[in-house]
C-alpha cells in the first residue's frame, strides 16, 4: 500500500492545476488554427507544443540548473531568446528569402511601408491609456507591424513577461490578414481608386540590389543604431542571396538555419505560456489592442497612398498601401485579390510587394526607436 502510494506520488497528477487544464483548451484551439486553418503553422505549431509542455507537470524540461545538476532542455534552448540570438538569425534567413526588387524599382513605396507603422504608435498610446507601462505598451504596439521575429525581439527586451501573448497575437493576426484587411481597404477607397493600374516594374540589376543591401545597412544603422542587429542580419542574408557567388551560404540561410531556429524559437516562446502568465486579463487586452494596431496600420497605409496621389502624376493604387504592415507575402496577396475584385485585369501583386518588404524595414526601425528610448532605462 505504501509502495502504491509512493508510486502515485511519483506521478505528476498532484501538480496539475486548474490553469493548466484551461490552457489545454487554449492549446487545442491554437493547434486547430495552425493545422486546420493553416494560421502560420511554422510558428504556431511549435508555439502550441511548447505551451503544452509548459502546462504539464514536466521534469527536466524547463527547470533551471541547480548546482551540478543540468537544467532542463528548454532552459538552455530558450537562452536563444533571452540572449536575443534567435530573432536576428531568423532575419538572416528572411533576408536570404526576400527579394527587395519591387521596392528598389519603385522606391516611393517606402513611404507606404512607413505610414503603416502609425498603428504601432496609436496602439502604444492606447496601451498607455489602459494602464500598461511604456515598455509594455511599445511591445504591444509592435504587433501592428505584423513582424513576428521583431515582436519577439522587442518584447523580450522591454516586456519579457508579455512575450507569449504578444507572439501569439503577432502570428495569429498575421494569419488573419486576409480577413482583417479587406473591409478597411474597401471602406477607405473609392471604386475608381481601386481600379488604378500601375505600370509594370522595371528590372533591377544585381548591382543595384547589392548596393541597396549595403545602403539600407549603413543608413538605418546610422539613423537608428538600436535596430542594428535586426537590420544587419536581414541585409547580410539579402546580400548573400543577391551576390550570386555564395549560393551555398544562401541556401544554408534559407533552409537549415532558419528551419532549425524556427523550431527552437517557436517552442521557446510556447514554453513561456504558462497558465498563470497567459490566463490574465492583460492577455485579452493585448489581443484586443493587437487587432486595433493591425486595423490602424492597414488604414494609414491606404490613406498615405491617397495622400501621395494628391502630389504624384503617376498614381498609386491605394490598395497596395495596406501591404505596408508586412506580413510578407500575405498582405501583398490581399492587395492583389482586392485589386482583381475591382478590375480582373489588374495585377497589383508585385507592386504590393514594395510596401510589403518596406514594412519589414519600417517595423525594425520602430523597434529600434523603442529600444533606444526604453531599452536603456
Amino acid at each position, binding site marked *: 500500500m505504501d509502495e502504491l502510494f509512493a508510486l502515485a506520488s511519483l506521478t505528476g497528477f498532484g501538480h496539475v492545476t486548474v490553469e493548466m487544464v484551461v490552457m489545454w483548451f487554449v492549446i487545442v484551439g491554437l493547434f486547430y488554427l495552425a493545422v486546420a486553418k493553416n494560421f502560420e503553422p511554422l510558428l504556431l505549431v511549435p508555439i502550441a507544443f511548447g505551451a503544452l509542455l509548459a502546462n504539464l507537470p514536466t521534469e527536466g524540461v524547463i527547470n533551471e540548473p541547480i548546482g551540478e545538476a543540468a537544467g532542463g532542455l528548454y532552459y538552455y534552448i530558450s537562452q536563444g531568446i533571452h540572449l536575443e540570438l534567435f530573432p536576428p538569425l531568423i532575419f538572416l534567413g528572411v533576408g*536570404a528569402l526576400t*527579394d527587395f526588387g519591387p*521596392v*528598389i524599382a519603385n*522606391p*516611393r513605396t*517606402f*513611404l507606404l511601408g*512607413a505610414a503603416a*507603422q*502609425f498603428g504601432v*504608435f*496609436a496602439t*502604444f*498610446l492606447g496601451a498607455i*491609456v489602459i494602464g500598461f507601462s*511604456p515598455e509594455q505598451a511599445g511591445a504591444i504596439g509592435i504587433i501592428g507591424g505584423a513582424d513576428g521575429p521583431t515582436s519577439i525581439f522587442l518584447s523580450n527586451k522591454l516586456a519579457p513577461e508579455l512575450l507569449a501573448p504578444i507572439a501569439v497575437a503577432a502570428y495569429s493576426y498575421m494569419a488573419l490578414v486576409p480577413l482583417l484587411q479587406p473591409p478597411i481597404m474597401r471602406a477607405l477607397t473609392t471604386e475608381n481608386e481601386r481600379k488604378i*493600374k*500601375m*505600370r*509594370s516594374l*522595371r*528590372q*533591377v*540589376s*544585381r*548591382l*543595384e540590389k547589392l*548596393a*541597396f543591401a549595403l*545602403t*539600407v545597412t549603413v*543608413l*538605418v544603422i546610422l*539613423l*537608428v543604431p538600436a535596430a542594428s542587429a535586426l537590420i544587419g542580419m536581414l541585409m547580410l542574408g539579402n546580400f548573400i*542571396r*543577391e551576390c*550570386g557567388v555564395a*549560393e551555398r551560404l544562401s541556401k544554408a540561410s*534559407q533552409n537549415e538555419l532558419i528551419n532549425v531556429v524556427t523550431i527552437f524559437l517557436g517552442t521557446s516562446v510556447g514554453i513561456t505560456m504558462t497558465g498563470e502568465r497567459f490566463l490574465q486579463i492583460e492577455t485579452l487586452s493585448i489581443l484586443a489592442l493587437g487587432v486595433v494596431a493591425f486595423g490602424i496600420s492597414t488604414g494609414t497605409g491606404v490613406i498615405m497612398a491617397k495622400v501621395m496621389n494628391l502630389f504624384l502624376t*503617376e498614381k498609386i493604387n491605394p490598395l497596395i498601401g495596406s501591404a505596408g504592415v508586412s506580413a510578407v*507575402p500575405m498582405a501583398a*496577396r490581399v492587395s*492583389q485579390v482586392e485589386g*482583381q475584385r475591382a478590375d480582373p485585369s*489588374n*495585377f*497589383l*501583386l*508585385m*507592386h504590393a510587394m514594395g510596401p510589403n518588404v*518596406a514594412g519589414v*524595414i*519600417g517595423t525594425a*526601425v*520602430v523597434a529600434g*526607436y*523603442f529600444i533606444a*528610448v526604453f531599452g536603456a532605462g
Partner: protein
Amino acid sequence: MTEYVVFSLSGFGLVMLVLSALWITCALLGLILGPRSKPAAPKVASPPPAPSPSPVAKGVPAAHVAAITAAVAAVTGGRARVVRVLAPAHGTTDWGQAGRHQLMANRRVRGGWAPIPAVSQKTSLISPTGGSRSS
C-alpha cells in the same frame, strides 16, 4: 500623457524620415546603377512573367521550363538539354502561381553583374508531341 503623444509623433516622424531617406537613396541608386533610359511608354501592368504564347510550350509556363532546365543542368553540368516537358494546358489560380514564382525566385542561380537573364525559351523547349524533336 502629452509626453507619450510627443514621443509617438517623434517616433512616427523618425520612421517617415528613415524610409524617406531610403526612398531618396534608392532613387539615386536607380539613376546611377539602373537601366540607362527610362522605359519609353508607360506600359500598363500585365501579369508579371507574362507567359508569352509560344507555339510549342502551350500549357507549360516558361518559368517551369526554366526550373526543370536548371535542375537538369545542375545534374549534368550544363551539357544535357531538356527536350520535352509535357503538361496539360489547364489553368490554376494566380495565387498558386504567385507563391511558386516567389519560391522559384529564391532558387534562381545568377552570374555576372548583369540583371538576371531571362531563361531563353528557345534553348530549352518542351514540345507536347512525341516525335517532333528528331525532325
